[in-house]
């Protein structure tokens, strides 16, 4: 078998050295009656690379490829053009096939890249420190809530109705078991966010207020008042960012007073991949660093005084602190973090700003074009590259009808909030630099037809 270097001759020679009469001798601790006699049933025998490649290719062709059609989906995952050099570099064996950098003398590559990643994330979010990645945005948000709980010793968090519903369900699921209590609500199809409700509901039991920016409907609002209200009550402000590209154009949550900023990094370097693997970003204030989950790379020197990097503050982590750790996370999403840091290094501030303004300009154009369709209303006043339309018809069937016309025309709120009647006419549309003029024409035509 192509992945197995041992020959039968090697095997018998090695058994001889070991002093075992047969391979099963080595499995003697496994109850004999349970040991499978031959190859396991059901699974075919080994297959050639060509056969497997053909099978997988056949499956892949059953999917509609985002890049092949007019594409306008967002809601937590965004299609951006990724420079070819990013994937080329993360496929270098030294990055792809290394482990968590436990032996820093021969892991400076990963460690320095982690350190650079942490700095980029902290600056993008407007925070002092960031960790070296979490699984994704949704799990990062839950970890932030638990962290706020540890810091404030309070158990109630107030979650904005603008937070991605999947993120909210993850938090609700966990809260059931940790006896945290979460105040949540459904979003409304209005230009206003629920900032006021949030501020009103902050109390002395509140550990944190959690807001998404831009939110699930693409709305953006100044977080400063919420931060001030939270701080006044001794609570923290947790901001969630699902589209990091936005921060090339609009204020960072850190600048507006957020204490913990978490989010999804997929937009930069990672790609759509049907939802995973993605990369969770996590940043906060220096004073909270010892309460932070996840790996951290830190600067130090070696025996010769040369600068080098190591994993640090491990006393927060499960492999040292075990049940007292700040989190149980071990393997996180470093390779995606490397893709993120490479793509962001290629962009730089200059490229990120250009990319962001191009996204926004393109989104404004699409909003104008679509709201010109009779009966179609724009929910948002302000947005970055994503906005919500109120259609004269239910959005969910409309989306399926557009698929028939070869257009992937946004995410219906019906998909995200099944059964929430007031939202059924809502359609969330993301527009990035990958959208061409022809794509916009096709979308406009398709939407016209399905709403009439």
């Amino acid at each position, binding site marked *: 078998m192509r992945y197995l270097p041992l020959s039968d001759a090697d095997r018998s020679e090695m058994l001889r050295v070991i002093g075992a009469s047969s391979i099963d001798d080595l499995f003697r601790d496994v109850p004999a009656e349970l040991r499978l006699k031959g190859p396991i049933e059901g699974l075919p025998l080994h297959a050639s690379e060509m056969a497997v490649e053909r099978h997988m290719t056949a*499956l892949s062709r059953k999917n509609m490829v985002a890049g092949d059609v007019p594409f306008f989906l967002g809601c937590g995952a965004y299609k951006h053009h990724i420079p070819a050099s990013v994937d080329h570099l993360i496929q270098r064996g030294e990055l792809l096939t290394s482990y968590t950098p436990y032996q820093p003398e*021969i892991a400076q590559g990963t460690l320095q890249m982690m350190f650079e990643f942490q700095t980029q994330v902290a600056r993008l979010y407007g925070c002092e420190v960031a960790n070296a990645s979490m699984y994704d945005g949704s799990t990062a948000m839950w970890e932030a809530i638990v962290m706020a709980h540890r810091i404030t010793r309070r158990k109630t968090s107030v979650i904005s109705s603008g937070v991605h519903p999947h993120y909210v369900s993850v938090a609700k699921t966990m809260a059931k078991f940790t006896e945290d209590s979460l105040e949540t609500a459904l979003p409304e199809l209005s230009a206003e966010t629920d900032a006021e409700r949030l501020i009103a509901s902050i109390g002395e039991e509140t550990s944190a207020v959690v807001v998404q920016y831009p939110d699930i409907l693409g709305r953006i609002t100044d977080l400063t008042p919420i931060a001030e209200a939270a701080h006044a009550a001794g609570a923290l402000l947790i901001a969630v960012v699902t589209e990091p590209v936005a921060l090339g154009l609009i204020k960072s949550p850190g600048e507006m007073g957020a204490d913990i900023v978490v989010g999804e990094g997929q937009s930069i370097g990672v790609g759509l991949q049907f939802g995973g693997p993605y990369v969770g970003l996590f940043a906060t204030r220096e004073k909270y660093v010892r309460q932070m989950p996840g790996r951290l790379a830190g600067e130090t020197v070696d025996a010769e005084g040369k600068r080098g990097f190591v994993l640090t503050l491990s006393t927060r982590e499960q492999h040292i602190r075990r049940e007292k750790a700040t989190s149980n996370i071990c393997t996180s999403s470093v390779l995606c973090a490397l893709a993120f840091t490479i793509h962001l290094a290629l962009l730089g501030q200059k490229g990120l700003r250009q990319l962001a303004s191009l996204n926004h300009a393109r989104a404004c154009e699409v909003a104008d074009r679509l709201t010109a369709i009779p009966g179609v209303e724009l929910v948002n006043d302000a947005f970055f590259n994503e906005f919500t339309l109120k259609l004269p018809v239910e959005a969910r069937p409309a989306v399926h009808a557009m698929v028939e016309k070869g257009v992937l025309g946004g995410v219906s709120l019906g998909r995200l909030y099944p059964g929430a009647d007031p939202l059924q006419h809502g359609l969330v549309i993301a527009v990035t630099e990958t959208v061409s003029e022809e794509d916009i024409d096709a979308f406009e035509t398709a939407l016209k037809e399905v709403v009439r």
Partner: protein
Amino acid sequence: MTVNPSGWRPTAPANEQGEAQTVTGNRALMLEEPLLFEIGSTEQTGVDFDPPRDGEGDHAKHGGGGAVQGSDPPPSGLRPATSPSRGGARLGGLERARSIGLPGLSEPEAVRHYTRLSRQNYAIDLGLFPLGSCTMKHNPRLNEKVARLPGFADVHPLQPQETVQGALQVINELAFWLLDLTGMYGVAMSPKAGAHGELCGLLCIRAALEARGDKRQVVLVPESAHGTNPATAAFAGYRVEDIPANAAGRVDLNALKARLGPDVAAVMITNPNTCGLFEPDMIAISEAVHGAGAFVYCDGANFNAIVGKVRPGDLGIDAMHINLHKTFSTPHGGGGPGSGPVVLSEALAPYGPLPYAAKYPDGTYKLVEEEDGADEHPDAFGRMVAFHGQMGMFTRALAYILSHGADGLKQVAEDSVLNANYILRSLADVLDAPFAKSGPCMHEAIFSDRGFAGGLSTIDVAKALIDEGFHPMTMYFPLVVHGAMLVEPTETESKAGLDQFIAALRSIAERAKAGDESLGAAPIYAPRRRLDETLAARKPILTYREPQPAEAAE
């Protein structure tokens, strides 16, 4: 950028060999590389944009090119979409004014920066990576290729289901084979890594107990368990208690039985355990645990040793996570991404999380989410992640399973165990192998630092292996063995490779016993000597700060 980007200064202690120093600090192909923030500039970018139209004037000054200028033949693809006159007008006054401080690199600089950095890493592709408990096996390149097929890599998780039938089929097929290989009843595919899978498994257990109104508080975990086990139990709201081990490095069955009671929700067992030993009493353990009304969670990180040889379902296990990034060869990537599907017994399957990919008689696939959950999977304990799990790992793991097939996977387990025992027996005369007398090990061999001369310890042996061209084994884990050295070669190592490793470790072990002080200086050939971890933790520097003009000058 300074000419010598490393911290090295002529005044710094010259290293032992009194090497001739270079002006650049480079040593031929071993190149020093400054930080991104020392070589990049906020005015530089490695990404071009097509020319501005009215309203995009905003970034006109950033000099997008004029790809649309008259060209014959006109490259069709080279026309950017036009944009509206109102660009930048709808940000609610939230424009980001201040500099973000993100340096950019041109593509040549970026390729070089990351190529040079990568060359400072060790990896499976370079040589033996016997990190015990981590199953660092070869990552097949076919897997990388299929994961990048546009039909998998360029598909949005919220596309209408009729447009992602192939993606759902991948999840369903992989789930099908994982159940076949484990003999379990159900599987939760969405957990993002092993620890996340542990959490998923414990939440299933907790949901099952609560469903019967049973509020148990305690989870029993062996001392030898991986740190994620107790951490997860605590994260899930349980109190953690130890299970003692016996002299043979296995769970002490009687002690366990004695402790079991109405307050115990679950027992977390790692099998094969972290000493690389199979728990021969596994069935008795399961029976005892079930007898006490508790559940058996199995940490499946070591499944590689038994895949295709025995089915965990036949051992009475209720829940087990599988690290696709270990047993099923998805690349570890310097610390993830991983994927930790959890297989479940009939008792726990009803409580598994949403969403999941179901196959219907008509050959179609459906992603069962909250919407249909109520009808099709009413007892689900909830949702673990946004979207549907690690698709990019699923495609790789499925390609791996189909490539090996039933015969290949059985061989995987056998060869991984054979390689580990070969190392165990080849070194037993120079290194103390605490459990060697109790019989063969499974996929990893464990040694202690017993017999090393004073002042020398496991770390010195590990660092000396670096100079010999190997990644060290896992050090000081599990805690139950003094100065533990946990060696997991995996099945993808050749005998020649093992022989070279054995010869190197043998000579180092002899030096350690002979008290060769020079071990303390190892490594001497790596990009860096031993690093000061205490300093790093004492005053943490976690992000780059631009030097003050004074320093910058130098």
